[in-house]
């Protein structure tokens, strides 16, 4: 389980014993004593995130309450040659927040204020530690919401959403986090505070805002974010379509998109996960179906009515065994509760699970699903599938019992094969979870050495000394540090 982290650790110099005491004293002077922690409990707690990657090694844990404090932490860490790892709610699934070799961990949970809501212009400034759902709750009376809605939205933070370019069921129609971020206040690794992007439609210069979103904490630390607010749709309809086979559900998804409809959500769940969820929360799902398709259309009522009619037609055309349109908000919420509770339901079946995340072209969904079932069977693992079908974003769940000898090797091997078949189908490594430490080794499946070299050039433009969340995203051999030492930047060429 810890192989990836251990391999990366070898590349980073461990802190010299005795130095940490002085580092902590300076951090406590910059913040307060109670907001810089170095006890075993804190360091253990923050040594992992929601991924299967354990074995992290946290240094001092700081809880800043302002941008100035984050800048001070960065400067102190730099003086001590120590790397920094930002952290939101720790809900990341690829090990992006797993600290290595005692970096200074900057937990942004106390920077959780909604600073300004400009309902007229549909813009809000929030601190990075604001919880995603808290913002939407605050906006509800204004008829607005923050569109990205990852499954962890009850606890995940806006800063974390920015770091991972988070998605969610409704990003099919509304777009992922990057489409809703207008500007970001960032503390760069050297301590400079900059604002990337702007509230105007076409900010001047390079789109550094866009480059920063999804960079997993490797370009600096977001402290404040200006987000675009989306008006709540006047009408929403949720449909539940049942099919004998997942392939029928996948074909229906392709037909819906080809017909010119862009639903707010298109979610597929296979029979195994449907049964687990139904036993868990009684969402009203048909447990005899081979797969179910949860579809939501929203907008103006006449448009919604047309779309619902068309989706029912396409569902029937592809052999739907039953179609239900939620009649009221209670029924609609129950249907969504099932989808959102899917991961929790798995705990009834197995104590551990590994949630994967790849994307394939919609037209390849059915084929790749078949391959995933085969892969799991060969590795004697239980796999369940629920996924954002509208954008081809697969989430196979490998459920297992970690106490079983040798099971982790099989889980990792199966995971690697799932990535391989997704790439071979013309897909990508990740749709919304990011790379972290989980998928570094797979980056070369998708990118050439030249491609990766250019990604590194971006990385070192923000962080020339490679101290922001090092050892993440880029594969070994293409690490920020490896490249930085080889390339001298000519002076006076430009700007």
């Amino acid at each position: 389980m810890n192989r990836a982290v251990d391999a990366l650790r070898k590349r980073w110099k461990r802190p010299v014993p005795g130095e940490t005491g002085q580092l902590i004293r300076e951090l406590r002077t910059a913040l307060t004593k109670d907001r810089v922690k170095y006890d075993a409990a804190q360091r253990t707690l923050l040594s992992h995130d929601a991924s299967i990657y354990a074995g992290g090694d946290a240094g001092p844990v700081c809880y800043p309450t302002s941008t100035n404090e984050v800048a001070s932490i960065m400067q102190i860490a730099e003086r001590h040659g120590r790397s920094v790892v930002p952290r939101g709610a720790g809900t990341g699934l690829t090990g992006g927040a797993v600290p290595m070799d005692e970096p200074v961990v900057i937990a942004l949970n106390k920077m959780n204020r909604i600073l300004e809501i400009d309902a007229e212009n549909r813009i809000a400034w929030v601190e990075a530690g604001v919880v995603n759902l808290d913002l939407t709750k605050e906006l509800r009376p204004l008829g607005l919401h923050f569109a990205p809605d990852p499954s962890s939205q009850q606890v995940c933070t806006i800063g974390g959403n920015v770091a991972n370019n988070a998605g969610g069921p409704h990003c099919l129609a509304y777009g992922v986090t990057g489409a809703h971020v207008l500007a970001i206040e960032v503390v760069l690794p050297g301590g400079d505070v900059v604002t990337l992007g702007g509230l105007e439609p076409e900010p001047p210069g390079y789109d550094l805002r866009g480059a920063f979103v999804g960079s997993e904490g490797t370009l600096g630390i977001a402290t404040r974010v200006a987000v675009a607010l989306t008006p709540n749709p006047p009408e929403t309809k949720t449909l539940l379509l049942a099919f004998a086979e997942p392939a029928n559900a996948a074909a229906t998804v392709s037909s819906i998109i080809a017909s010119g409809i862009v639903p707010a959500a298109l979610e597929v769940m296979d029979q195994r996960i449907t049964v687990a969820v139904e036993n868990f929360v009684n969402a009203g799902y048909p447990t005899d179906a081979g797969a179910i398709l949860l579809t939501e259309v929203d907008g103006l009522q006449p448009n919604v009515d047309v779309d619902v009619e068309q989706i029912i037609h396409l569902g029937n055309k592809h052999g739907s065994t039953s179609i239900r349109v939620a009649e009221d908000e209670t029924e609609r919420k129950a249907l969504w509760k099932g989808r959102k509770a899917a991961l929790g339901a798995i705990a009834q079946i197995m104590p551990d699970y590994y949630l994967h995340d790849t994307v394939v072209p919609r037209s390849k969904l059915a084929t790749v699903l078949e391959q995933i079932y085969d892969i799991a069977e060969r590795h004697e693992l239980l796999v369940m599938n629920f996924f954002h079908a509208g954008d081809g974003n697969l989430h196979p769940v490998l459920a297992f019992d970690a106490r079983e000898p040798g099971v982790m090797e099989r889980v990792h091997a199966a995971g690697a094969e799932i990535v391989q078949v997704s790439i071979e189908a013309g897909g990508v490594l990740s749709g919304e979870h990011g790379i972290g430490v989980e998928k570094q080794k797979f980056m070369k499946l998708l990118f050439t050495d030249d491609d990766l070299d250019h990604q590194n050039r971006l990385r070192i433009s923000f962080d020339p000394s490679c101290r922001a969340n090092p050892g993440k995203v880029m594969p070994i051999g293409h690490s920020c540090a490896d490249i930085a030492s080889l390339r001298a930047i000519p002076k006076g060429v430009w700007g």
Partner: protein
Amino acid sequence: MIRHTDIDVQIQEFAAAIGDREPIAIEGNRTRWSLGGDLQPDVRTLTAPSGIAEYTPAEMTVQVGCGTLVSELHDELAKAGQRTALPERGGTVGGAVVVGQNHMCLLGRGRLRDSVLNVRYVSAEGQIVSCGGPTVKNVSGFDLPRLMVGSLGTLGNLADVILRTNPIPTHSRWLVSDDVDPFAIQKTIYRPSSILWDGTFTWVLLEGSEQAVNEEHDKLSAIAAFEPSTEMPVLPEHRWSVHPNDLRFPGQFGESFVASIGVGTVWGANAQPKRNIEPGVERVASRLKNNFDPTGRLNPGRVPGRI
């Protein structure tokens, strides 16, 4: 599905022509040729690969050579009832991407920067580099396509792109009124595709099913007299990009202007004063340029953000 298999061959030839030394600039249709400063004299120019490489409507994506005219692309997509966020102003796909200006109907089309899924470009060293991915959703590695939008070709020579497409609504209707508060429109109706205001007249674009367009038209008629419009405003010469709230103070834009309400784009008689970029941001941008173009050979003379 449309597939022109020669795009890879074209890109190889494009890379060979670019080589790895001497200044180079890529020429589109020169509709925004002066943006970002004048090209240094005697710089060799090339055109980018062209043609639609692959288009599958059910994937809502299209792969297209950057030398293709946006109008040609849109003509092809329209056959399948789709379009993109790129503005259609006589220019090429690559030109639209590196200029980075949004469509006049941004509210309905979405931002251009969000529609670019994958970019292949030829680097300053002559390498063919690919970034992004072919799917509508992707967080695999650093997001270089965002950097290429609005870069004026100063980070790489764009060869082809994969763009997200969107369905063309079945009905669309422009309405005009000379008796309405333009800032009240977004409070009255749900997600209009465009609101333009010239200080006297307000134009509103409604898109959707026929019944939805009719109902939104009725809602607008309840607050002011609106008529269907066949004539669109003439856009003054200079493009501004401002905070949407600044549109309430239009005197700065000159004697004539057309403002995109809810967005912040303005076409004004006056030129927009130079917008400052923070020193810290400039430092990152400078390192970025130097890392991507160590010898300064890409589109020399042009600087994004310079008017």
